[in-house]
């Protein structure tokens, strides 16, 4: 989204949004939503793209500042290295909303994210329940250098160890690359039988399905050879695959909500509103983080075919209208 | 002064030097001669600390040679003009001259103005007229050779090695070089001089050492020695030189009768090189194209071979108008070329002798665009025998050959296609006496078989076998001599004395 016409009037304050990257399905839907909600929230946009490079983020914020933005929305993929940037913004008294990640230090007006640890937890509960606590599960991790990837991995492993010790987890880092993912999965399929796969992002989706298909392991749940697949993100394709019984579950990241509430809170900050911990009007809770910032923890629903409840985790059906994947052009 | 004892050097299976000894007396000018591949250049690179010997010792003034890594020390005891160009194309002439010893100013910074000034001075003493701030890569072969010589002699070393310094120089240039050498001799500088021009040896050397097949054969005073003795030592057989000449002579009778010219140039002109040149070459005819470097002979020859496109005039190869600047068309039209600078255009160093020799005749190597190694090697072997190339076999990479043998490979490449017109530019540069005979007698033979030959050169030996010699000066045809001319009239003509 490029900058909408018309400079910053007091009614429509100028807000800078830095997109973390443009080369994944998830962040692209975010990029699509931001301009849509900008109008709704009544802000004017200046956008930049830091291409998953924290030093680009720093200099992009600089350029936003020199363009007199009244507030900044960022999604720092490196929660430590963003500190100096936050300090600069604080010095300039420019409010910040952090999307998707929780900066390790520094002051932000609001953090808007769905807890990545919850993703891993939910995936673990689903698989654990389906596999009745025993079997071999391949965890197609993201990139070790990505905080979100690590949160999902840690939560998944911790939950497995604690609740389903009978399940062995084979962790495979994939650098978010589907070729690597499918290569490693195939190699793992060579060894002992695999009963479940946890894909930490939708990138590995079709590579995984192909790998299983090639070995004739893509069979309905009724068949004992069925491999349970949990994905993550909630892109339209995943929802289709769940309906088609190709995969069993996914965790839907609220891309639309990220955009909506990111802009909502920055506007609020500019208008001098304040918030405090507790339930919100949009089914989420605001908590105070150890760093003393506020964090609006958006729900990230587990999506399953039957919409049942697994290990105490409620899930929704793939056609649930609340899912962003269901009302998106593509 | 310098002493090499039992020096041995091997390259893979090839023995380049076999326990050779050489001792050069202080103040003497010592010639080192031998056939191509005898090991001269190898000894040079050992004597100048570029390659370590496998065995044996080198001593200067009775002291052992410096450590290989200690380049400065080497530079003090010996300066050298190598057979292969050691100028750096990207750097200016001035910097090439003073590489590693740039004049410095305050703060150990290089003074470029001073550098250029000294460079100009240095080149003036050699009457070389080049802009010293031009990159060396843009100089002509002759100019570059002078830059190398000037650099070597300017170190002020008391021992100087010259490996075929005259191979790339024309007449007047060689005279200039010798003047300088005589001066150095008067200053008591010791010189090791390598050349395939034996008369040069007799002209300025006092002692001569002969190598053959990597071994030391003889060391004798030049005085009272005659050419045939040397050749005998070099070749290991007693045989009179000049066979090439007579061979060419025979061809002369056979040739000339050929009707339609194989090459006909009318008012050919290339800006900045030569103007309205009319020249025809008939089947079986050997035409010499004489002239000094700047005469335009080389450019003209290259135009005939399709390496350059003329600006005006017409050029016909065996009756059909030539495609200007299309080498492939020229080759298919029956033209064979021996280019001037073998390292630049002559061969692909890391490919085998066979591949290089057959590069111009792909269609003979196999059906439908394929190459049958057996066929290629067979063809290559015949060429190797024909030109008597000293090599381990058709599959040896050309960069493993000695200078002269590389030149023969280039010749082979030109002859491979049995051309109707053979164009050669300084074909015998750096080729030993016997090989020179082989090359020239081959020229005579192909001529006898009806091929027209155009030899652009300033080497009198090259020209002697020609039926007629056309002399170019300043880009125009200045004179023409039938066979049987006298050396001095030819030299005079090349120098442009009498006209222009």
């Amino acid at each position: 989204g490029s900058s909408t016409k018309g400079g910053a009037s007091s009614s429509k304050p100028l807000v800078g949004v830095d997109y973390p990257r443009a080369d994944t399905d998830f962040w692209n839907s975010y990029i699509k939503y931001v301009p849509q909600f900008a109008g709704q929230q009544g802000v004017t946009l200046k956008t930049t793209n830091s291409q998953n490079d924290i030093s680009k983020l720093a200099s992009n914020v600089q350029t936003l500042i020199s363009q007199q933005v009244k507030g900044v929305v960022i999604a720092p993929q490196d929660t430590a290295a963003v500190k100096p940037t936050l300090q600069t913004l604080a010095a300039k008294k420019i409010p910040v909303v952090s999307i998707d990640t929780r900066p390790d230090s520094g002051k932000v007006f609001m953090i808007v994210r769905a807890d990545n640890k919850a993703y891993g937890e939910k995936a673990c509960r689903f698989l654990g329940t389906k596999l009745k606590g025993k079997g071999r599960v391949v965890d197609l991790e993201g990139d070790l250098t990505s905080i979100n990837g690590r949160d999902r991995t840690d939560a998944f492993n911790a939950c497995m160890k604690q609740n389903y010790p009978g399940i062995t987890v084979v962790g495979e880092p994939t650098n978010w690359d589907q070729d690597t993912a499918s290569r490693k999965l195939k190699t793992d399929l060579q060894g002992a039988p695999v009963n479940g796969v946890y894909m930490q992002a939708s990138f590995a989706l079709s590579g995984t399905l192909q790998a299983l298909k090639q070995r004739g392991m893509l069979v309905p749940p009724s068949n004992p050879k069925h491999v349970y697949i949990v994905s993550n993100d909630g892109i339209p394709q995943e929802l289709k695959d769940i309906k088609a019984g190709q995969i069993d579950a996914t965790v839907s990241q609220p891309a639309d909500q990220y955009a909506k509430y990111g802009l909502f809170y920055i506007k609020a900050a500019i208008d001098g509103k304040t918030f405090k911990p507790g339930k919100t009007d949009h089914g989420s809770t605001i908590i105070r983080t150890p760093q003393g910032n506020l964090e609006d923890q958006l729900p990230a629903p587990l999506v399953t075919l039957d919409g049942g409840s697994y290990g105490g985790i409620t899930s929704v059906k793939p056609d649930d209208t609340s899912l962003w994947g269901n009302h998106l052009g593509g | 002064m310098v002493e090499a004892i039992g020096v041995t050097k091997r390259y893979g299976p090839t023995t380049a030097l076999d326990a050779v000894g050489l001792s050069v007396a202080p103040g003497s000018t010592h010639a080192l001669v031998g056939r191509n591949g005898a090991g001269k250049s190898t000894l040079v690179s050992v004597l100048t600390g570029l390659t370590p010997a496998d065995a044996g010792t080198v001593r200067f003034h009775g002291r052992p040679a410096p450590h290989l890594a200690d380049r400065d020390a080497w530079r003090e005891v010996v300066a050298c003009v190598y057979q292969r160009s050691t100028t750096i194309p990207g750097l200016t002439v001035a910097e090439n001259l003073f590489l590693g010893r740039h004049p410095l100013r305050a703060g150990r910074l290089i003074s470029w103005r001073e550098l250029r000034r000294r460079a100009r001075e240095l080149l003036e003493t050699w009457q070389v007229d080049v802009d010293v701030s031009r990159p060396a890569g843009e100089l002509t072969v002759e100019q570059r050779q002078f830059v190398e010589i000037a650099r070597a002699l300017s170190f002020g070393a008391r021992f100087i090695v010259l490996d075929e310094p005259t191979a790339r120089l024309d007449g007047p240039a060689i005279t200039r070089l010798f003047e300088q050498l005589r001066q150095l001799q008067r200053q008591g500088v010791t010189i090791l001089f390598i050349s395939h021009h034996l008369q040069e040896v007799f002209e300025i050397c006092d002692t001569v050492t002969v190598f053959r097949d990597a071994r030391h054969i003889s060391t004798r005073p030049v005085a009272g020695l005659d050419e045939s003795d040397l050749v005998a030592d070099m070749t290991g057989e007693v045989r009179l030189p000049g066979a090439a000449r007579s061979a060419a002579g025979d061809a002369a009778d056979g040739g000339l009768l050929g009707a339609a010219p194989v090459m006909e140039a009318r008012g050919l002109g290339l800006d900045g090189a030569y103007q309205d040149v009319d020249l025809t070459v008939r089947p079986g005819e050997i035409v010499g194209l004489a002239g000094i470097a700047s005469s335009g002979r080389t450019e003209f020859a290259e135009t005939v071979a399709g390496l350059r496109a003329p600006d005006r005039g017409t050029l016909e190869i065996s009756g059909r108008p030539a495609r200007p600047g299309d080498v492939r068309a020229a080759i298919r039209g029956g033209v064979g070329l021996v280019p001037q600078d073998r390292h630049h255009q002559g061969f692909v160093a890391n490919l085998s002798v066979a591949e290089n020799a057959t590069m111009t005749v792909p269609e003979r190597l196999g059906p439908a665009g394929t190459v049958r190694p057996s066929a290629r090697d067979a063809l290559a072997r015949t060429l190797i025998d024909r030109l008597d190339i000293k090599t381990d076999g058709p599959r040896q990479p050309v960069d493993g050959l000695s200078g002269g043998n590389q030149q023969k490979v280039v010749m082979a490449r030109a002859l491979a296609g049995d051309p109707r017109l053979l164009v050669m530019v300084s074909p015998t540069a750096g080729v030993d006496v016997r090989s020179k005979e082989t090359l020239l007698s081959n020229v005579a033979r192909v001529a006898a078989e009806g091929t027209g030959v155009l030899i652009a050169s300033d080497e009198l030996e090259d020209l002697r076998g020609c039926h007629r010699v056309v002399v170019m000066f300043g880009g125009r045809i200045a004179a023409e001599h039938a066979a049987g001319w006298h050396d001095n009239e030819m030299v005079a003509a090349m120098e442009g004395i009498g006209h222009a």
Partner: protein
Amino acid sequence: MPDNATVTLPGMRRLPALARLRDLALIPAIIVVAIVGQAVNPVFLEGGNIINVLQTMSEIAVMVLAETLVLVAGKMDLSLEATFGLAPGIAAWICLPAGGSAHGLGWLGGAWSVPLTLLVGLAIGLLNSLLIVRFGLSAFIVTLGMQITLHGMLTGISGGKTFFNLPSSMLYIGTAEWGGVPVSIWLCLVLFAAGVGVLGWTRAGRSLYAIGGNTDAAKAAGIRTDRVLWVAITTASVLAAVGGLMLTGRLASVAAAQGTGDIFTVFAAAVIGGVSLNGGKGTVFGAFTGILLLYMIQNVLTLAGVPAQWIGAFNGAIILVALILSRITSGKRQE
């Protein structure tokens, strides 16, 4: 086998028959790895696993073949990895239905997807040749620029999304099997065999070595250097497109990042396999052993379950070791 193999094996000048040995330089290493792999995990030498290794390497291997052509001719192509992604990407984009989750254009029917892929490869190759051969720009930097541009274009047209539900014709070579062996393996082997033949025993092939070794000399010998270069560079891009098609088929999708970063592996494989970056040296077979070695080691590492965070360090160390191995076996300084 190309005679220039002898170049890197001075000790063997007298034994032309052994010339091709240079190509086998990596075979010992490959055998060692095979033994180690088997020791590490008995699964290693099982047919299933070997096929798995071969199939996963087949796509990159085709790029290695392509790069070898270009390197032998004395040029470089860094944009292959991008062509590898963009060619199938554009085909999918044009052939997938517009709207819905497919986000394509729906201009052409699915049957067009394969020809389109090759066409895109061809077009990119011609553009590269134009800039490098015709305009005389530095191959390294032209193709670097192209690489970034083409990656960017894929992100652009896909909007960063992955193309799913591809036309079945695109999936064929990536999924079908002949005699229990995936088509992509067959295709890869056939292409390499062809490569060995062309570079070893045809004029055009030998002319690549001539040009890579000394362009001026090649010109003076009547080789149409420019034309040969055009052909080589363009063929390479088409091959990269084919490789991309193979991967697309195997993964039944085109990710916006397809190919990103692969060029490093490609170069590593070629050079370890004995191809010189200065042109004129190296063989197709050597390049094949190079990529095979790298993938076998990768597979062993995965089977050995090397701690995740150290995988990267291992991969690098491997390349270094393989390099030193090939240095020792060839006994010749490298440029």
